[in-house]
């Protein structure tokens, strides 16, 4: 956790528009992502979070400032393949990132492009499929899988490159709750067990709460950066940029607004229940669990 794998320096990006007025999407982003960390980037639609993600493996190049991936400038075309094999990217729609019509052929796509020898490709494909728990589906056709399974195949297709960092751009936006849970579990396992750096772009509070670090974007700038627990306590600030906070914190915040003395940092239901229990038992001096 000592070295920055991705570093942006005063990153600016604007889309050229037809009227000649450039549309500024990123307005000076300075961000360092440490090797091995799990960072969530949270933001409203149009906050620039997806654009930021696309800068992390040179899909987009900055119009101002610079982005460094493991010390390599993303504007350096000679290092393009090195940059892309270091930072893999998973997108929202699993259907539109699966190339082949057999699961294992799709997972083999990236190593094939990198010119990895066939025996080594086989090893990587099997390993990647086991990591996302899709090994038994290796000979299936992707279009017959569920959304969550497809997205896990897409993740396997990226980790077969053996990237040191994976950027996931709203990977659960098109999935049902079961699929979402599957994908999140896979992402967490990748980070904790394999030590892959994860950057999760999302607008779901509960997903963001699982990260080690939370970066909140609004209007092309970083407006908050820190541990989820700390960031979510800045309720007014988050509300002002169009974001809500997890329901537990929402509840405690309202209680606090009503003048009650409760802590704000409850990320899970249990913590919230505990806080309420303490509040009630402090007030009335009797058990909370006994009458529920």
């Amino acid at each position, binding site marked *: 956790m000592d070295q920055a794998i991705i570093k942006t320096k005063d990153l600016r990006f604007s889309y050229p528009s037809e009227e000649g007025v450039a549309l500024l999407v990123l307005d000076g982003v300075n961000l360092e992502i440490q090797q091995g960390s799990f960072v969530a980037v949270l933001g409203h639609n149009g906050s620039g979070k997806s654009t930021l993600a696309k800068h992390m493996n040179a899909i987009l190049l900055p119009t101002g400032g610079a982005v460094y991936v493991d010390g390599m400038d993303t504007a350096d075309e000679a290092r393009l393949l090195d940059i892309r094999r270091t930072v893999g990217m998973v997108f929202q729609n699993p259907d539109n990132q699966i190339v082949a019509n057999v699961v294992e052929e799709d997972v083999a796509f*990236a190593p094939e492009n990198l010119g990895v020898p066939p025996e080594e490709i086989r090893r990587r494909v099997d390993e990647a499929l086991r990591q996302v728990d899709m090994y038994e589906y290796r000979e299936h056709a992707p279009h017959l899988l569920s959304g969550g399974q497809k997205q896990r195949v897409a993740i396997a297709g990226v980790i077969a490159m053996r990237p040191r960092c994976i950027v996931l751009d709203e990977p659960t936006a098109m999935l049902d709750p079961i699929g979402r849970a599957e994908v999140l579990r896979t992402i967490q396992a990748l980070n904790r067990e394999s030590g892959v750096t994860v950057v999760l772009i999302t607008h779901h509070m509960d997903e963001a709460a699982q990260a080690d670090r939370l970066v909140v974007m609004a209007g092309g700038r970083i407006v908050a950066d820190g541990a989820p627990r700390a960031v979510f306590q800045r309720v007014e600030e988050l509300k002002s940029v169009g974001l809500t906070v997890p329901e537990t914190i929402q509840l405690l915040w309202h209680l606090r607004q009503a003048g009650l003395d409760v802590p704000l940092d409850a990320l899970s239901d249990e913590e919230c229940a505990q806080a309420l229990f303490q509040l009630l038992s402090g007030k009335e001096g009797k058990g909370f669990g006994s009458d529920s």
Partner: protein
Amino acid sequence: MALKDITLGQYFPGSTVLHRLDPRTKLVGTVAYIVALFLAKQLVSYGILLVLLAVLIAVSKVGLKAIVRGMKPVLVIVIITAVLNLFYTSGGGTPLVQFWIFKIYPEGIWAAVFMVLRIFMLITCTFLLTYTTSPIMLTDGLERLLGPLKRIGLPVHELSMMMSIALRFIPTLIEETDKIMSAQKARGADFDTGNLMQKAKALLPLLVPLFISAFRRADELATAMECRCYHGGEGRTRLRQLKLRGMDIAFLAGCLTLCVGIGVLRYLGL
């Protein structure tokens, strides 16, 4: 409309000799069979080819049912060809049947029978190819087989990539078509009644969103491919290596023998 019934290049997984042959061998074999089919003129040659096909079907374990089912869409063409051959072939002798302007000669009957047989055999042998070869193996085989044409500037890798992506997206786009149709029907669109012109017009609100979505998908897929280091065919390796084995060589030798043999029979007028 049962869109899900559309099958293109349907593949029946299996592990028979035909399944295990190298796709290149099978492609060459199919071409050789078609060549032999067009060289065949008389009963003996047709008989040999027919028996050969029957043996191959039996070996493939595909089942006659699947082949007959696949024939349905071409039935109309076959009937038209047969009828045309029947009436337009004139022989030297007296016609067998004669009414109004139509005359049927014995030669016409033979021509019709052979033509129908030829079309059915041609289709069956290509079915055997696609039924026993997965699409990815097929495009792979085609890419290797056409490899030498790269030198004259034919974009072989790009073509086979396009083909395999097209195959990959057929089910996705069919599913999408179904969804758009349901959405349009829910808002009162009518795809089933009216004359041909009206039906064609009704398809327009279906095709426009379908095309827009296909382009959007293409754009996203291109980005995803770039993210996975795709940079054309250069320096690319493959998970599956194609290797010609003993049985491939034997099969190819058989194909050559077949073509030469049928050619000789044609020369002998058999």
